[in-house]
């Protein structure tokens, strides 16, 4: 291939990097100052594109185009500021994951909202007036607009640099990024600084969205398609580092541009491969710095955990008996739903063990579930094994993968750990998606039905209930075993844990593997319940579902996720079958729950109970 091709390919990569950078730097800026992991960044990007679409079709002049982009971004920035004031401001002291959950809720709402306002169809805006032609580079035509983008990236980086280094506001932002207490000491009103930074970040995202008008179709899925990529860029660059984001955007875009020349199928997995590689070699990204101790810890704690006392055990037993008797009242459909809910309970309980006990927030827990499901499906399909064998093989497949991936993951901490788990999960997903000969690709594996004895709805429900009970009991037992205490020591205080002889990596690694094994069991049960397995079990959506269930139940609790899973799963099944805009309602509910019950359902209940106990008799501290 010729040199000309490489040059043009490089320039094309630079143009792609520019739009990626614009969105990523907003995210990085917001994280750096407010420590908010803004999942809604993609939604703001999408809103920017929709508004810009509406304006650019009206103002089709060279000035009008750019004005439209700026106005659209400004409107979205104002919206962002309003959201910051009404919602996020109440969450700055909350754990990062709650912020993630709230902004995820906003994203869901935005998706349905744009459908309501702009309709369901993809919209194609006009090309940039005056910039729609091509310029010839070494005999090959390239869009003029790409050159504008190539210049825009460094220009925005430069402007931000000036803002950060040549203005008092910028000084405050940098101070807040590096040392939050210092800003307080400078006597600055932090509240408005945060609002301002959030609005600026949103402005950049929305502007980035508007810039896509001449190249892309505007649709209600563009938020999710950008958000993961942007997270990856920000993490590769190092959270909070603008230059890092710039570098990472260029690396990702260029590797993509050149990767497809060599291996055309690579783009699906390339960014995640790069992220995994960078994180393994540099645990804080290219230019990132170690994060200060996360606030998450202190907020997980609401009194010392204790095994259930007599009353608690009786209540749990009563619930179990009621659950076992459900087939008397529920029909086949009801039992199917109940089994699905129980499987969600297993999945959530396995994630909660990892998150609440071990303090490891995994964004890739879907890999545990999905590998269990695929392990089961493949052993049935290719090796003709029975369901009983698959019930063991699936979880083992998950555990085996976790043993490998976990070895790398537990070397990292906090958000970087989370992103590396996400990268591994995405790599597994793309293998399932692309390796059609073995996994059937997107068409999945069908015909995975239970053995005859378990094929009735009641029998399968009881099987699932048995597994669920075992998993919940096991996670509780582990929580109160010496191993569980070692995990909690590592979570509460890594320094203390080391000083009393607990070595972090092997202990956390073991927790990672156990958690994946249990998630794998959920996967097997899911596969046999549905009779099929598809790559979406490995997708980001499944991981997010897990996070929501744990947070909803209360991640400061031992088994709150049981309640979280039941409520979330039932609500989402009901919403899907009974409303036209399930995302709007579900998103709204999530945001509301975060605001009203930040401790989760069980966490809130526990607090209410504890409050009553304390008020009644201060000496009641029932040890078991």
């Amino acid at each position, binding site marked *: 291939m010729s040199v000309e091709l490489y040059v043009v390919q490089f320039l094309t990569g630079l143009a792609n990097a520019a739009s990626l950078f614009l969105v990523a730097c907003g995210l990085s800026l917001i994280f750096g100052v407010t420590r908010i992991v803004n999942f809604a960044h993609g939604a703001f990007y999408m809103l920017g594109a929709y508004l810009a679409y509406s304006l650019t079709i009206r103002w089709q002049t060279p000035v009008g185009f750019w004005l439209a982009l700026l106005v659209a971004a400004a409107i979205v920035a104002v919206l962002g500021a309003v959201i910051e004031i009404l919602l996020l401001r109440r969450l700055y002291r909350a754990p990062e994951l709650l912020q993630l959950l709230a902004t995820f809720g906003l994203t869901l709402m935005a998706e349905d909202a744009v459908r309501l306002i702009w309709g369901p169809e993809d919209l194609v805006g006009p090309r940039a007036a005056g910039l729609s032609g091509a310029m010839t580079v070494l005999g090959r035509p390239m869009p003029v607009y790409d050159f504008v983008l190539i210049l825009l990236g460094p220009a925005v980086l430069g402007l931000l640099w000036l803002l950060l280094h040549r203005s008092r506001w910028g000084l405050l932002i940098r101070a807040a990024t590096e040392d939050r207490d210092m800003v307080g000491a400078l006597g600055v009103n932090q509240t408005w600084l945060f609002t301002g930074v959030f609005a600026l970040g949103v402005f950049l995202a929305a502007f980035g969205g508007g810039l896509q008008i001449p190249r892309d*179709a505007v649709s209600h899925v563009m938020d999710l398609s950008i958000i993961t990529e942007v997270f990856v860029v920000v993490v590769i660059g190092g959270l909070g580092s603008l230059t890092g984001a710039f570098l990472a955007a260029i690396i990702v875009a260029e590797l993509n541009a050149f990767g497809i020349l060599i291996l055309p199928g690579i783009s699906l997995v390339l960014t995640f491969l790069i992220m995994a590689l960078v994180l393994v070699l540099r645990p804080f990204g290219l230019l990132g710095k170690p994060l200060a101790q996360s606030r998450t810890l202190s907020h997980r704690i609401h009194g010392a955990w204790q095994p259930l006392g007599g009353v608690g055990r009786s209540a749990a037993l009563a619930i179990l008996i009621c659950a076992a008797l459900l087939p008397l009242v529920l029909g086949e459909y009801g039992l199917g739903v109940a089994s699905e809910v129980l499987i969600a309970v297993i999945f959530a309980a396995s994630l909660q063990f990892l998150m609440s006990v071990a303090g490891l927030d995994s964004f890739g827990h879907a890999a545990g579930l999905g590998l269990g499901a695929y392990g089961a499906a493949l052993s049935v399909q290719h090796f003709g094994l029975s369901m009983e064998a698959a019930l063991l093989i699936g979880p083992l497949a998950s555990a085996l993968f976790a043993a490998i991936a976990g070895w790398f993951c537990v070397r990292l901490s906090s958000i970087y750990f989370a992103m590396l788990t996400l990268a591994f999960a995405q790599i597994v997903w793309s293998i399932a998606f692309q390796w059609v000969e073995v996994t059937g690709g997107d*068409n999945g594996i069908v015909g995975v039905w239970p053995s005859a004895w378990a094929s009735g709805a009641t029998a399968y429900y009881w099987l699932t209930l048995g597994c669920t009970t075992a998993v919940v009991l096991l996670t509780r037992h582990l929580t109160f075993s010496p191993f569980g205490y070692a995990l909690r020591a590592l979570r509460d205080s890594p320094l203390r844990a080391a000083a009393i002889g607990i070595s972090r990596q092997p202990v956390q690694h073991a927790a990672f593997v156990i958690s994946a094994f249990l998630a794998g069991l959920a996967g097997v049960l899911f596969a046999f319940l549905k*009779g099929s397995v598809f790559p979406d079990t490995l997708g980001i959506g499944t991981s997010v579902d897990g996070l929501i269930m744990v947070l909803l139940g209360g991640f400061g609790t031992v088994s709150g996720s049981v309640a979280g899973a039941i409520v979330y799963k039932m609500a989402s099944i009901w919403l899907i079958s009974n409303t036209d805009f399930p995302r709007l309602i579900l998103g709204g509910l999530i945001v509301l729950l975060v605001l009203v019950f930040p401790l989760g359902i069980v966490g809130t209940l526990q607090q209410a109970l504890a409050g009553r106990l304390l008020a009644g008799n201060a000496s009641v501290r029932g040890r078991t």
Partner: protein
Amino acid sequence: MTRLSTLAALLLGLSTTSQSLAADIKIGEINSYSGLPAFTEPYRKGWQMAVDEINAAGGIRGDTLVVISRDDNGKPGDAITAANELVAREGVVMLTGSFFSNVGLALGDFARQKKVFYLAGEPLTDAMVWSKGNDYTFRLRPSNYVQAAMLAEEAAKLPAKRWATIAPNYEYGQSAVAVFKELLKKARPDVEFVGEQWPPQGKIDAGSVAQAVEATKPDAILNVTFGADLVKLVREGTTRGLFRDRAVVSFLTGEPEYLDPLQADAPQGWIVTGYPWYGIDTPAHKAFLDAYKARYNDYPRLGSIVGYALVKSAAAILTKAKSTDTADLIAAARGIAVDTPFGPITFRAADHQSTLGAFVGKTAVRDGKGVMVDFTYRSGNDVLPAEADAAKLRP
């Protein structure tokens, strides 16, 4: 409070079954309404119109046809939950619908396991009726194979020898390319495939892809991308001169769902399959078009046709069947003839595939909009393998 009452409602909802009139014949319908509104909304309009027409004409032998519709959230797993609800709780006599191939396959396998009749609408994968076909599953739409065969036939007439392909990186794109390659090679042993690009669905890096394809210097290009990816590809490719002096053959691009968003950017002279609703002058289609426009004040998309023909087919099967038992429905559906806006079709007894066809033509831009010109209707009959051969493809 709200949470409690919601929970209570959920529990009640699970344990009670909804009441129905004895004279209703209920069929279940599942599709990706919230995930793919651009396709499923015209589709819903289509089947709703068909339901009303059928009931206005006396229903199914006097009984009212009722369609109970559910969203599958774009996920096979959720589709199974919905199917369970429809079968076990609502007591529907058959399942219909779905858009995604994986949802269709999951429902087909569910039908086999639970011995329920399933009439698939949109899923394109050949596996639906062939490698993973089963007794309980029928499919309306012309499959991937049919589209590929129609396009390969046209492609074989071109002088082009060097071909490059661009297809989304998943089963649909992969099998579309594979079938097209195979059929074109059979018709024209002299062609060679010099390059292939597999952009991820929904995330095409169009500039780089266009450049990479250009570098292989093909005479012609096969495109399988659609939706937002197609928009990006067309824009970048056009600006970069990728399509200049090159033949392009493209799957589905002539369907209004994909062509209309492009507006004036629509490509010109591409050989495509699609649905030129503005130019079909058969009486059957005219009647459909007029009724649709009058009812919705909108023009139909291909989804409207699929939804409409799907419920018409279901009604025909129910009318012909001795009872609503699954075995009777299967017996009735085998070889049944149904009138659709595209003309009469039959559901082939050997592989349960309908002979619904598609229009093959060229794209052009008229009044700032993309349209199909020089099109002809190709029935599935013309291109499907003979029934005896197709039967061998089934397990």
